[in-house]
């Protein structure tokens, strides 16, 4: 069993704090590292991969520090986000080189290529590969030495749905085999489909951790904000506030609209049209004012 421990770790670049006092433990199975763009996911993965020193705190693999410790790569496989590879090589040459650097032979490379189903294009130059093919060859290069830990930075970026499904199957299999698989993503649905365990990171801070369903509930149970315009705002406000699903209403006179905070999302969405109809009020605008992923995340941070 291989475990990565991140203990009170921060990392800053000049005045910018990219990762802020994060503590988490990544164990066997598939873990999703979820967060909006720029949240510090790559910084965190780079520290776990030994490509970045923590400014404070420690990042360890089964107790051994990862930074400046080449021996951890016997156990870690890394799939970087960056596209750059040795484009002048063929896929096979690239994976064979990666195997040799681990002290392994061609057979290991061939197995890895078979695992990612890239044998059919292995003799083409990497320069001619599509994004999904590159991703799979990167994956093969990370798998040659049969690592117990796999770190993937935004692995689904630029993949088409079929390639995405293939990779998800592969990662699921790796997790089921008892490997520690960590992947980052800014897309909720990707993480939902693949990871049972989730770590959420927002603005460099560790916002939530745990089972996906728990986090999903946190996300849907949060107060939802709506901007509503109607034929009679005050009458509508009076009728809505009577129901417990509405937590607060503000009459924004400058905008000529109601700003409504709903606590029970499901109930409110049924309530609103019924109330409007019962009072003969026409709804002109109903728009959620904070549906962006960033606002969902920032809610989690304050929760």
């Amino acid at each position: 069993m291989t475990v990565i421990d991140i203990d009170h770790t921060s990392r800053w670049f000049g005045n910018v704090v990219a990762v802020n006092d994060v503590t988490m433990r990544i164990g066997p199975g598939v873990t999703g590292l979820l967060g909006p763009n720029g949240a510090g996911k790559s910084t965190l993965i780079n520290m776990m991969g030994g490509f970045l020193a923590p400014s404070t705190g420690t990042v360890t693999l089964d107790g051994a520090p990862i930074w400046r410790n080449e021996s951890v790569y016997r156990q870690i496989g890394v799939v970087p986000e960056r596209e750059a590879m040795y484009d002048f090589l063929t896929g096979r040459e690239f994976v064979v080189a990666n195997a040799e650097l681990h002290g392994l032979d061609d057979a290991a490379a061939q197995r890895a290529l078979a695992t990612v189903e890239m044998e059919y294009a292995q003799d083409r130059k990497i320069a001619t590969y599509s994004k999904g093919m590159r991703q799979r060859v990167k994956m093969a290069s990370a798998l040659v030495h049969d690592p117990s830990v796999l770190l993937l930075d935004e692995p689904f970026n630029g993949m088409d749905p079929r390639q995405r499904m293939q990779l998800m199957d592969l990662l699921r299999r790796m997790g089921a085999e008892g490997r520690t698989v960590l992947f980052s993503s800014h897309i909720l649905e990707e993480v939902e489909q693949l990871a049972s365990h989730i770590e959420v990171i927002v603005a460099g801070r560790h916002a939530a951790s745990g089972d996906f369903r728990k986090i999903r509930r946190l996300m849907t149970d949060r107060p939802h904000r709506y901007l509503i315009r109607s034929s009679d705002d005050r009458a509508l406000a009076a009728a809505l506030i009577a129901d417990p699903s509405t937590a607060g209403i503000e009459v924004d006179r400058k905008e000529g609209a109601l700003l409504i905070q709903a606590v029970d999302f499901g109930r409110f969405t049924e309530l609103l049209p019924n109330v409007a109809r019962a009072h003969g009020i026409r709804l002109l605008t109903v728009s959620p004012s904070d549906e962006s992923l960033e606002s969902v995340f920032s809610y989690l941070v304050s929760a």
Partner: protein
Amino acid sequence: MYNPTVARLTYRALLGRRRALILFALPALLIAISLAVRGLTGVDDKVAADLLGGFALATMVPLIGVIAGTGAIGPEIDDGSIVYLLAKPVKRPTIIMTKLIVAIAVTMAFSAIPTFLAGFILNGNGQNIAVAYTVAALVASIAYSALFLLLGTVSRHAVVFGLVYALIWESLFGSLVDGAKTLSVQQWALTLAEKIAGEGYVDSAVALSTASVLLVAVTVGATAYAGQRLRRLTLAGEE
């Protein structure tokens, strides 16, 4: 301290890039000039020494050193593909040593061999001038490779700095200012050439003992430091 896989990748990267054209163009130019000079002026030891000293050793060797030295590692660090070497249980100093060996081999091949040929074309190795400058080119190749490999490891603008050093420091200051001559790879190499060539054909500003010490110190120091820098190399994310 040598990894054949790293060496293979480095060779292919070095010779596969467009920059590699300069590796072929400069020696071709030297040979072409030598043929022209020989055809126009006939055998002249002084002219041979001037051309090998002024163009081959002062300009061609450092330029090829810049391309091979920085090119052996700089582009990989720039585009991030070095991650595939670093994420392996291979000691970082081994990666640097291997790349140094490749850079030296490439610099020697593309500078010393053409220098030798040019010397033979110019005056048939009269006064041992061809051999003297070939040895100088071989020695300079080692120091230049180590220096420029270090530059490629620490700076994203390694080629620019390398060119500034090679062309402005070595060629301009190195030939005009006496103090600068002591700190010039070219001058260190010339001390050896001076011993080999006939009297009065090669001039060096540095004593052989000083030159040897400086040459070894720079080569070893630069390589050791590059190895340390690679151990601490940070790959920033794209965020």
